[in-house]
């Protein structure tokens, strides 16, 4: 049995008493070293869920446990150290005047001694491939580079979990690829759980598990493969499936025997060229 790192127990949330309920009795968990993608269209409560995970918001009802601790006023700073967060807008989370200063910001907040700081900055910038940009100012970096610095800033604090709250939404396709590549890399090198909140279904294919949010409820929970098998249902709540999956569905509709739901081009290709082989 895998160790659960983060757990929501019957969490409900609304911004004000008279405003609509954003999350309604949600119970989920994220295991250690797991990559969970949360999708859902605007207003489904997915971003709110992210902010509840590190105490930027606190639930009206229910409990949030992080690493066995019940989130409360007393341990909030300890929990924020364990749960790092990367936001959507690359510019609005860059605090330092240079890359180095920005990575240092989180470390300074947690009172890390200077010698240790220097080491960690070098290490985490290397992990995201930005070590050559140490002294660059933010306006000389691309969006993707800024987001990588944001990831490095989070990693420097050595969290057990990283939340990417639509971190790729404002990037071009190249920037998105950079970020996903970086996240993949980091996952291989360190023991971190990853939660990606996203619109992008291609990002979902990389995750171990997907949680689909709809109107404040968990609508689906399972692997990406399982998710993309239910094409019509997904479309009924306003979400679409990736092109590759759509193609596989069409093939099935034509009577071809596509066995497993492909997640990317290679899998689809493998599926196609082995289609008629009998062994």
């Amino acid at each position, binding site marked *: 049995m895998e160790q659960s790192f983060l757990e929501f127990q019957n969490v409900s949330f609304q911004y004000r008493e008279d405003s609509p309920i954003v999350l309604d009795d949600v119970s989920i968990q994220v295991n250690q070293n797991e990559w969970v993608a949360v999708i859902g269209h605007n207003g489904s409560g997915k971003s709110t869920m992210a902010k509840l995970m*590190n105490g930027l918001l606190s639930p009206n009802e229910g409990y949030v446990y992080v690493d066995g601790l019940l989130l409360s006023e007393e341990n909030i700073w300890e929990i924020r150290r364990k749960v790092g967060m990367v936001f959507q807008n690359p510019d*609005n*989370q860059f605090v*330092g005047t240079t890359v180095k200063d920005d990575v240092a910001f989180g*470390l300074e907040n947690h009172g890390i001694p*200077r010698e240790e*700081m*220097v080491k960690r900055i070098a290490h985490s910038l290397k992990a995201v491939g930005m070590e050559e940009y140490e002294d660059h100012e933010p*306006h000389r970096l691309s969006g993707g580079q800024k987001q990588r610095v944001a990831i490095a800033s989070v990693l420097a604090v050595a969290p057990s979990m990283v939340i990417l709250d639509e971190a790729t939404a404002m990037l071009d396709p190249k920037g998105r690829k950079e970020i996903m590549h970086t996240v993949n890399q980091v996952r291989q090198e360190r023991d971190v759980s990853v939660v990606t909140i996203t619109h992008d279904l291609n990002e979902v294919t990389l995750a171990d598990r997907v949680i689909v949010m709809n109107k404040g409820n968990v609508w689906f929970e399972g692997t990406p493969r399982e998710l993309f098998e239910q094409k019509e249902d997904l479309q009924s709540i306003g979400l679409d499936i990736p092109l590759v999956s759509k193609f596989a569905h069409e093939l099935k509709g034509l009577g071809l025997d596509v066995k497993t739901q492909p997640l990317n081009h290679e899998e689809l290709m493998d599926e196609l060229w082995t289609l008629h082989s009998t062994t």
Partner: protein
Amino acid sequence: MNSSMVIGQYVPGDSPVHRMDPRAKITIIFFFVIVVFFANSVASYGSLALFALLSVGITKIPPRFIAKGLKPVWFLIIFTFILHLVVTKEGNVLFSVLGFDVYSGALIQGVAISLRFFLLILITSLLTLTTTPIAITDAIESILHPLKKVKFPVHELALMMSISLRFIPTLMQETEKISKAQASRGVDFRTGPIKERLKAIVPLLVPLFVSAFKRAEELAMAMEARGYQGGEGRTKLRELALRKVDYAVLVLFTFVIIAVFLTRA
């Protein structure tokens, strides 16, 4: 990136003046500005001018950068000089121009005051030319540190300054974007009477302010997520350290001050 993105007038370099501790530089400039007003003889002005020019020389900054910094004040310097020539009536009449008598005392006074002005601007612009804005911020935080005892928010002030510095280029880019967007809808920023042009700025400022507030809110949330809880218990990456060169310059400057007071008329 275009040159307008450069904040302040910092000219990168590797001279001893560049490498000096910004606190030492600020201290020297602070006392220089005071001492300039005590100078009243050739020798006292001379020693201050020598110190200033020597500093400029060591920085190896091309004179055109320095001239650029002085540009807005040339008019003021010349104006004061002429004013003194016309108004002061001491000493002997040297010559007369267009019916105005120019006195010898006026000439001396004019030169002295203009020189005082020139030295002030020169030495203060040397600070911004050789020090990055962020280093100046650090120095201010360090110098004001004792005020923490009387509950003065020194750390918050420094953080505010450094965040402003960091967002200047971002907001400038944004201004450019908004002004292009508005121009494409027919707003004319460049021609027409002043009143019309001022009116045209409103559709530029409103979206800029709205977005600046939104940015501030998001930034605050990001800072909180990264564990920011005020200045208590914080460590700092950038450290300021007084080194030999700083002490040497401070000692040298002390001699200059002594020289000024000894040679006063």
